[in-house]
């Protein structure tokens, strides 16, 4: 698995929501690359081959008796011993396995032939068809399986094939429902709409786009069902409801062994172990695929199993900077094990004063969110601070472990993210969510907490807080949800609010309202604010000071007015002219290429590959962040020259 890059980290969260299936070759690869899955698969393949090749692997048939060697343990002649008639157990297991495997195949075949088409049709077509199919499935699911099986066996004269097919048919009801849900989820994906618009025929949409989305769940269901089918098959043969006696069956062997238990307890081992292992192997296969699907849903971070450690010799970066509420000094964050560590941000230093509003700007993948998560102690598993320090009111947080963060989170530092809905538990009403939070922070009574919750909703300018408090998160709009999320962040009366792209998912009108709200809250309460955005315009609406990040580094820090008036770093300048708001006709100027992934950071200036002004001096060695003017720091060797030159070309900057 490759190392996660910030671009991946930030985008993956969005992507995860929509990628509902394991990628194509994914299922087999998922199984093979997991130790558990691979072992299970190898075992099943071996068993299958051994049973198929029983005639070659063993001499004599399964029913050859040797009354001179009854009830023996394992020996050179009989690797697994013999039974009470002196028949070789290994031979009988292999021949018996054939009927078991055939039985599973029959049951599975019946199951899949029925459940896949019905499930996909019900889920994809919906409406009346769906209702009829699901009702039918419910009906079938309520039928007692074992009674039906016994009846079938009685009617069809102990035909195991009929019994297993019947079992598959009965089991298909449950699987149909599962497949239906998968198809239903796939139906609402945008790429299905895209296929319709293109003019792809309905049947093709089902086969090419819907079915592959369901592949994962189908494999899981099939594997788990195979395990159950084997159990049922064994049970029936154990009760001698299957093929008549001399014919070898696994269940029959268990029955024989049980009858000889006091004489030759060993006999129970071979058949028992094989049955158990086979059931487990099917179960494991199902589990592995299911886990993979679950992982693809959660914003999984690559490298999660590694422990990233702070370097023993890493500088702890001195003492807390004077007069700052929060400061990060020389903060580096990395992913991956020691040997293969990749930095996601490198030596980031920034600070926020009491009551100050700091903006952090940069494209996706520049490390803004990782920096914020590091500051708030919310880095995902496998990603950790390796160097530097975070100071909050003079206390260092990164070395204090989870406790240090816990003591400041909520009360000291609160965070609001791009996806407010994620912060709201869908199963509780908004008012309850807020009240619970207030109680956990204040330990006040239920009634007080409720009052407090209503007041908080009022503070984020919700006109009818009583009404909104009664609603569930899914019943409110995105803009309203962001207000509620802000209210939750305010509950602990934090001295610093971190807002990470709080308006990126919102309409411009709602964005303006939320920004106005944040500005007002910040002014009224005197709390400090860090506002993260890819949009310079958004940041300029609120912030006193702006910090521009690119590819894991701070590239410019200055007072907002000066930064926008005279940007010193070419990246800042490029961001400004790519802003549609600064368009003045003609082609919109863009920044060519993309933010490089951390493994691809250049040695010299990270921006050099995209910078129109790069020279040799830019690529030789790492560039440092330095004081360029009295109030402006920039990480560019040519800052002064360029800024003087470029401010003469009026098209670059908005006048």
């Amino acid at each position, binding site marked *: 698995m490759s190392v996660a890059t910030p671009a991946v980290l930030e985008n993956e969260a969005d992507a995860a929501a*929509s990628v509902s299936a394991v990628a194509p070759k994914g299922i087999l690869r998922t199984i093979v690359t997991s130790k558990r899955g691979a072992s299970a698969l190898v075992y099943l393949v071996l068993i299958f081959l051994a049973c198929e090749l029983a005639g070659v692997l063993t001499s004599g048939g399964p029913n050859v008796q040797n009354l001179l060697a009854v009830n023996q343990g394992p020996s050179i002649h009989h690797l697994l011993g013999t039974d009470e008639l002196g028949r070789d157990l290994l031979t009988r297991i292999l021949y018996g396995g054939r009927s078991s495997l055939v039985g599973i195949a029959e049951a599975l075949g019946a199951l899949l032939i029925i459940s896949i088409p019905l499930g996909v049709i019900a889920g994809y077509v919906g409406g009346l068809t769906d209702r009829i199919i699901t009702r039918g499935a419910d009906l079938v699911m309520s039928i007692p399986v074992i009674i039906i099986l016994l009846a079938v066996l009685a009617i069809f004269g102990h035909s195991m094939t009929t019994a297993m097919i019947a079992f598959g048919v009965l089991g298909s009801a449950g699987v149909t429902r599962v497949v239906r849900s998968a198809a239903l989820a796939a139906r609402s994906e*945008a790429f299905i709409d895209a296929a*319709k618009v*293109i003019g792809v025929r309905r049947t093709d949409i089902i086969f090419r786009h819907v079915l592959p989305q369901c592949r994962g769940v189908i494999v899981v269901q099939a594997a788990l069902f195979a395990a159950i089918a084997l159990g049922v098959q064994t049970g029936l043969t154990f009760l001698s409801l299957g093929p008549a006696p001399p014919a070898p069956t696994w269940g029959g062997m268990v029955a024989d062994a049980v009858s000889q238990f006091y004489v030759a307890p060993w006999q129970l081992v071979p058949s028992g172990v094989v049955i158990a292992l086979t059931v487990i192997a099917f179960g494991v296969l199902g589990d592995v695929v299911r886990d993979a699907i679950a992982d693809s849903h959660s914003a999984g971070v690559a490298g999660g199993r590694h422990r990233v450690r702070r370097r023993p010799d890493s500088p702890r970066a001195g003492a807390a900077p004077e007069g700052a509420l929060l400061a990060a000094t020389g903060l580096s964050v990395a992913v991956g094990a020691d040997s293969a560590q990749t930095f996601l941000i490198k030596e980031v230093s920034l600070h926020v004063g009491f009551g100050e509003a700091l903006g952090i700007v940069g*494209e996706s993948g520049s490390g803004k969110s990782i920096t914020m998560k590091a500051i708030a102690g919310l880095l995902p598993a496998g990603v950790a601070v390796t160097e530097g320090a975070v100071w909050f009111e003079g206390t260092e947080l990164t070395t204090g472990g989870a406790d240090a963060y816990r003591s400041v989170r909520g009360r000291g530092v609160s965070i609001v993210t791009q996806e407010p809905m994620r912060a709201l538990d869908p199963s509780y009403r908004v008012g309850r969510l807020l009240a619970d939070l207030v109680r956990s922070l204040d330990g006040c009574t239920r009634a007080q907490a409720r009052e407090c919750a209503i007041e908080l909703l009022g503070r984020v300018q919700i006109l009818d807080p009583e009404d909104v408090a009664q609603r569930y998160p899914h019943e409110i709009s995105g803009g309203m949800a962001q207000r509620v999320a802000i209210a939750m962040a305010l509950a602990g009366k934090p001295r610093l609010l971190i807002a990470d792209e709080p308006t990126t998912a919102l309409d*411009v009108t709602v964005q303006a309202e939320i920004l106005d709200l944040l500005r007002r809250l910040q002014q009224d309460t005197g709390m400090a604010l860090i506002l993260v955005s890819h949009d310079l315009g958004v940041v300029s609406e609120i912030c006193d000071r702006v910090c521009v990040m690119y590819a894991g580094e701070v590239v410019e820090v200055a007072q907002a007015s000066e930064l926008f008036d005279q940007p010193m770093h070419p990246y800042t300048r490029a961001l*400004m002219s790519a802003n549609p708001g600064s368009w003045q006709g003609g082609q*919109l100027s*863009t920044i060519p290429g993309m933010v490089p992934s951390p493994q691809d950071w250049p040695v010299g200036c990270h921006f050099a590959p995209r910078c129109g002004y790069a020279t040799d001096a830019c690529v030789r060695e790492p560039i440092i962040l330095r004081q360029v003017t009295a109030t402006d720091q920039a990480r560019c060797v040519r800052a002064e020259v360029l800024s003087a030159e470029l401010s003469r070309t009026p098209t670059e900057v*908005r006048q």
Partner: protein
Amino acid sequence: MSEPLLSVEGLVVDYQLPRGQLRRALDDVSFNVLAGQTVGLVGESGSGKSTIARAIVGLAPITAGTVTLGGGAAAAPRQSVQMVFQDPYSSLDPTKTIGYSVAEPLRVHHGRELGAQEVRARTEQMLESVGIQASAAKLYPAQFSGGQRQRIAIARALIVKPKLVICDEALSALDLSVQAQIINLLVQLRETHGISYLFISHDLSVVEMLCDEVVVLYRGRIAETGPARAVSNRPRHPYTRGLVAAVPEIDPVARAASRATRERLRKPVAPAPPLEDSCQYRHRCVFATEQCEQSRPALRLTDGPTLVACHRYEEVARDLDEKAESEIPAMTPQS
């Protein structure tokens, strides 16, 4: 003037809600797209922009009105109208290579006459023209960034040489810097392929840049329409005013002016009343009067080249412009 490429006349769309209720998503919407023209649809989410797009391509039920394709698009509607969706993460099938996805429309419409070789060649050529290496055709969507995926989605829309491409919030999920790249790509493709766009966005500043004409929607009705520059430089409808003032400004003077306008237009958020035969904006409008409650304003010609559906747009203009005239820099007169 030639026959319009797309003509939407009196379009009404009702969605069926669970308990037999109906929600009117579009209420009597009319506009045209001429050949080679780019028309913008602007409005907040839920205003019906996507519904218009979906009605055009047959994904939404049409209750009343007509959608007519003309100018050569009528012969093969499925091929002539293509769409680029908002979410670059879910609009490409994650289980298919991008080569497959981009080639799919070609296979659907020309699978018979074109051999596999030709399909592959055209796919690679199309990918190159949107700035994706041809060798990337065998990769899966998960291996691309949002901006790259949107380029791929554009390649898929253009491969069958459509006459009209509908971009439904195709930029909204992207960084500004990536938006700029895609905007330039769309402009360049418009010139090389001679296509028309129906460009849907909630952001007027992007629409102004890309579009000839703009239609501003609010709650399924047209609030204002006209040449894009005229609408965004001199908005008449109070809602459009708010939209313009909502665009974040780097320039301090413009920012102060926008903020002042926003203050002037601010009204506590109230739940939306039923549409009825009244102005659909009345609950949010600081200028609303009795008249706005009692009759639905018709779209009417203003003193400029735009049409606006507001009973009081003259008074609104007087009220807002008196204060703002001095503050809003360089308002270009409509051409």
